[in-house]
């Protein structure tokens, strides 16, 4: 790659090349799906042809989007997603009797090569966008840390608010990404969280300092896959307005920039998440429950569901 001297131009020109590649491949898939199928070792039955045509339409859409916005990382990430689809299709074809596995293998190798390029270009572009938006650069190991600060006021006494948080096993009741927190002893606890793509991560944490009922700070133990630390400060709000909760989180996302970008695609952006989590924390303390509506977000119409559990699951309160 020649991008080191002039990464800004290099980024865009690689994106443009990938955009044209998308359109070229898409055209071949749309116009000559039969020949293409045979070339990559698939049988050209109507199902395969329909699938290739659909993939072709997707490629052309992505390519056009990249060419009209070569500086936008989002469409390059869409290409990465498309590559994953292609690879899964090819890999599943390997198991069938009626395919030419040598040709399929070559096709998979080619797609893997393109995927690597797509990943590199998308990651660079995301980094560039973050810099342009003044976000901290997360290229180097040390500066990968994400720092989030949020405050909320809860109409309850400081002792009650502190006590609820200090019982760490309560945290999964309002932190959507946490599956469980298990208290091991007075200081140490084991945390289990949902990661993107249905995976889970676990780590151990210890409380490093606390002063009842004013603050708690913790950090993950050496050797944790996700290095993280945090603190929460409680203060009496003026004029009997309850308790102010100031949360500060510092963590290194899994797999650095790429992990964060993938997390973003899955709606797991930590800043939004903590805001939502704190609203739930407030609801649990003030109301004793997290209000659920039939239409959480814009994911389904505001309409009853045949099975209420379906809505509770979508709203993330089923635990």
């Amino acid at each position, binding site marked *: 790659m020649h991008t080191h001297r002039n990464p800004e131009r290099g980024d865009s020109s690689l994106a443009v090349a990938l955009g044209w590649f998308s359109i070229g491949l898409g055209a071949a898939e749309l116009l000559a799906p039969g020949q293409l199928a045979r070339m990559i070792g698939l049988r050209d039955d109507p199902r395969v042809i329909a699938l290739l045509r659909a993939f072709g339409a997707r490629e052309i859409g992505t390519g056009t989007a990249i060419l009209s916005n070569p500086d936008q990382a989002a469409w390059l990430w869409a290409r990465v997603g498309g590559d994953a689809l292609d690879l899964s299709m090819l890999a599943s074809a390997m198991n069938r009797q009626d395919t030419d596995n040598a040709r399929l293998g070559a096709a998979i190798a080619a797609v893997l090569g393109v995927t690597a390029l797509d990943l590199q270009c998308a990651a660079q572009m995301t980094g560039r966008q973050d810099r342009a938006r003044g976000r901290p650069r997360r290229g180097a190991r040390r500066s990968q840390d994400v720092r989030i600060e949020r405050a909320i006021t809860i109409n309850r006494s400081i002792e009650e608010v502190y006590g609820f948080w200090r019982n760490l096993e309560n945290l999964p009741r309002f932190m959507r990404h946490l599956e469980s927190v298990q208290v091991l002893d007075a200081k140490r606890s084991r945390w289990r969280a949902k990661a993107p793509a249905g995976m889970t991560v676990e780590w151990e944490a210890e409380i490093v300092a606390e002063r009842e009922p004013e603050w708690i700070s913790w950090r993950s133990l050496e050797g944790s896959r996700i290095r993280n630390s945090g603190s929460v400060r409680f203060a009496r709000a003026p004029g009997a307005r309850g308790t102010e909760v100031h949360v500060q989180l510092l963590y290194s996302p899994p797999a650095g920039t790429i992990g964060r970008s993938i997390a973003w695609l899955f709606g797991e952006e930590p800043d939004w998440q903590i805001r939502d989590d704190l609203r739930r924390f407030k609801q649990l303390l003030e109301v004793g429950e997290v209000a659920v509506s039939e*239409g*959480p977000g*814009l994911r389904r119409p*505001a*309409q*009853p569901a045949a099975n209420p559990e379906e809505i509770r699951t979508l709203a993330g309160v089923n635990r």
Partner: protein
Amino acid sequence: MRATCWYGTQNVQMRDVPDPGILNPRDAIVRVTSTAICGSDLHLYNGLIPTMKRGDVLGHEFMGEVVELGDGVKNLAVGDRVVVPFPIACGHCLQCEREMYSLCENSNPNAWMAEKLWGYSPCGIFGYSHMLGGFAGGQAEYARVPFADVGPIKVPDGLSDEQVLFLSDIFPTGYMAAENCGIQPGDIVAVWGCGPVGLFAIKSAYLLGAEKVIAIDRFPYRLRMAHERAGAETINYEQADVHEALLEMTGGRGPDHCIDAVGMEGHAPGIVGAYDRVKQAMMLETDRPVALRQAIMECRSGGTVSVAGVYGGFIDKFPMGAIVNRSLTLKSGQTHVHRYMRPLLGRIERGEIDPSFVVTHRMRLHEAPAAYDMFLNKEDECVKVILKP
């Protein structure tokens, strides 16, 4: 069950949807006996409120019989006859404790959407966009009512549905608009819009001691109703110069308080001068604050402009200079219905007001699509439609 569902601009359809179930411990399920179409539902019907989704169940004015209760509701029993307030409020946050129920901090699960448009989020509202919670509405056979221990009030059997249904929204809304004026003896109040909220604002202004109420609209049948049923003097803005008429009717002082019961879809009045010039520009916006602008300009110095009509986003050509230089007070808010239900029920029981006077049409729930159309186009002298499942 059958439910009135939103499917796009001027597209409302009756659909079979699943019956609602308990989702939170403090929920109640209500079998709807009467529901109504609100003027603010027409903003949804016209596609002016963002974050609607095809299939959303509409309706925020409804009442009925409690048929199921969550474990957390102790003050209601199955079989109770209740009216449900349109704002959803938890009863425990700071805003609820201050009786600012429509600002409840805990009842909008989609608060982040409202924060993007308005800075902070108000409460959730039944059947009124995902930005305001994504709650299924009450123009249906059954409705789920969250925080049922805080909102619904039991109503006596001696009163008909038509007499108490409007405690859910338009009676308290008109009442709060009048209350926000801080009416003093001798005050004259002008009300823009003679729809149901305008009519209740007129009635309420008299209940609160106004000397005279002047109603402004362009539909003769609505002005007639404001005069005959609510006791207002009237101005038809298509036939008279509102400014000249108001000066004449107030001895040259101008109305002490002005109420905007029109909202974001005001029609440009055919009057002379500056208003006509801005009229064109207003058509470029989503919110057309024609009534609001006129209410501000017409209000006497030191008076109050009270906004009951719904505005959604941003307006321009807003006469801030008049507000600052003439010490006007601007008051508004989604109605804190919970605050008013009991006192207003008391007024109904004592015979001080019979809210059923606004009803012009009684239809079956399955006729909702036709009812929306009729209400929007002011056909058949329509003022208020009640739907019965």
